[in-house]
């Protein structure tokens, strides 16, 4: 059997490693349009950004797997696929028995009148990080657009005594993905000044400011951290996807039997949420890849993982077990000078646990989610998820 994987990011690499460890009897063609060995993305916005030439430390695959005889790397952009013929088209035509779309997402860019391209940045690839790093030395004022995890991670990583970093949010609060109470702690400790409700009119190059509804905001550099959009063009062209993602079943199969999709481009039923969703995280990339590997190795098991996530912001480590809707209620479980744990819930059912510097609570929540649902009442009675886990095991 010959498998063709489009993309060489987290999901693709986990699939390759799982297939090789599972003694996959076949060949794997991997199409990688980035001209370097596969690498991890999370470090790009964290402390690694201070020295973005060290690509060795963020290599995604161990050398014996990257150079395994069953894997063939093709450093080309895939222009089209033909599902019925098992064809993958670059400048040449490759035929395979099964096509895997692991194309991930790309950073959204906003068009701002007057902003020269050398002052406009995103962070999605190593090249983006290197490009940004080159421009940092004389940037005293940095404006980060967007107010999600990426924006705040960048603010911490770029912190410097001579630099002023401003995070500009369009909405009415920072970090809307998490509870107001958890966001408050991260914002308080951030080196950035946060501006909400910002509308940008244009960039004035002469005075190096963004002209906004809140007046001029100094910006020698503008970093756009305004979200990502899925790379679904290949799938769309053969009716297998839309701008929202590539729908799959719980075995990562698309609507075509010869095509699967994994990683953050895939849109599938999330048992934890009870609905279909496209999730951008390492756990999603790994868990969808593992699900597909099992199927390709002849031991299919439906996707059943509970999502989890982490984000490092200076000395603060946010870890989230589960996933919730923005409208889910919030209750603070633990609040000390260094730690904060916020529970998100629908009635008595806990949907997510947001733990800041509280790894035990995060891990206990992951274990409890794996075993069964978690009751808010039982958690509050114990005062801690860790104690709840211990009591459930004794």
């Amino acid at each position, binding site marked *: 059997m010959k498998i063709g994987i489009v993309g060489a990011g987290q999901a693709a690499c986990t699939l390759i490693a799982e297939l090789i460890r599972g003694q996959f009897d076949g060949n794997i063609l991997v199409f990688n349009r980035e001209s370097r060995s596969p690498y*991890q993305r*999370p*470090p790009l916005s964290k402390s690694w950004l201070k020295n973005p030439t060290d690509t*060795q*430390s*963020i*290599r*995604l695959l*161990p*050398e*014996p*797997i990257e150079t395994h005889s069953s894997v063939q790397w093709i450093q080309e952009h895939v222009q089209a696929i033909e599902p019925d013929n098992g064809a993958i088209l670059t400048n040449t035509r490759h035929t395979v028995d099964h096509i895997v779309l692991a194309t991930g997402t790309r950073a959204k860019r906003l068009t701002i009148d007057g902003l020269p391209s050398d002052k406009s940045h995103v962070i999605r690839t190593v090249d983006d990080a290197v490009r940004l790093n080159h421009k940092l030395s004389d940037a005293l004022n940095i404006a980060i657009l967007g107010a999600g995890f990426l924006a705040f991670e960048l603010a911490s990583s770029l912190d410097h005594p001579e630099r002023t970093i401003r995070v500009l949010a369009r909405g009415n609060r920072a970090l809307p993905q998490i509870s107001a109470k958890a966001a408050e702690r991260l914002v308080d400790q951030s080196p950035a000044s946060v501006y909400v409700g910002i509308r940008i009119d244009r960039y004035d190059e002469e005075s190096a400011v963004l002209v906004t509804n809140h007046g001029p905001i100094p910006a020698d550099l503008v970093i756009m951290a305004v979200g990502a959009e899925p790379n679904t063009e290949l799938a769309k062209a053969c009716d297998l996807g839309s701008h929202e993602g590539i729908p799959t079943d719980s075995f990562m199969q698309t609507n075509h039997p010869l095509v699967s999709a994994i990683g953050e481009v895939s849109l599938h039923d999330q048992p934890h949420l009870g609905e279909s969703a496209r999730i951008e995280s*390492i*756990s999603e990339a*790994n868990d969808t890849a593992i699900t597909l590997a099992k199927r390709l190795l002849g031991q299919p098991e439906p996707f059943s993982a509970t999502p*989890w996530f*982490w984000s*490092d912001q200076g000395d603060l*480590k946010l*870890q989230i077990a589960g996933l919730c809707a923005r409208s889910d209620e919030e209750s603070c479980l633990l609040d000390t000078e260094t730690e904060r744990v916020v529970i998100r819930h629908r009635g008595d059912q806990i949907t997510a646990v947001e733990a800041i*510097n*509280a*790894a*035990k609570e*995060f*891990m*206990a929540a992951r*274990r409890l989610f794996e075993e069964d649902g978690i009751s808010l009442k039982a958690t509050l009675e114990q005062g801690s998820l860790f104690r709840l886990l211990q009591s459930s095991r004794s």
Partner: protein
Amino acid sequence: MPQLICIDPAEQAINVTFELGETILQATHRAGVDGIIAECGGGCSCATCQVILNADWDETLDAPSAQEADMLSFAIDPTPYSRLACQVELNEKHDGLRLLVAKRQY
């Protein structure tokens, strides 16, 4: 280059060369040592990179941070000598030391 001796879950000994300042995870990952899963790639958020050191490592390392210790308590069957491979930085004193990869990571 300095080396570590890593015993993988199949009890195979592998010599792993390392650079000063890199983590155990970076060195073992490059060498492709089996059994270290490291789902989070070094983010101290998954506890699937457990290794077991021995008394020779005493005095060469600082105690684990609170975050690492908390994560370690959720690794599978941690011992007093367990550490997360992604959190231990290697220096010249580690040349020639041995470690065991945990038999199971989850």
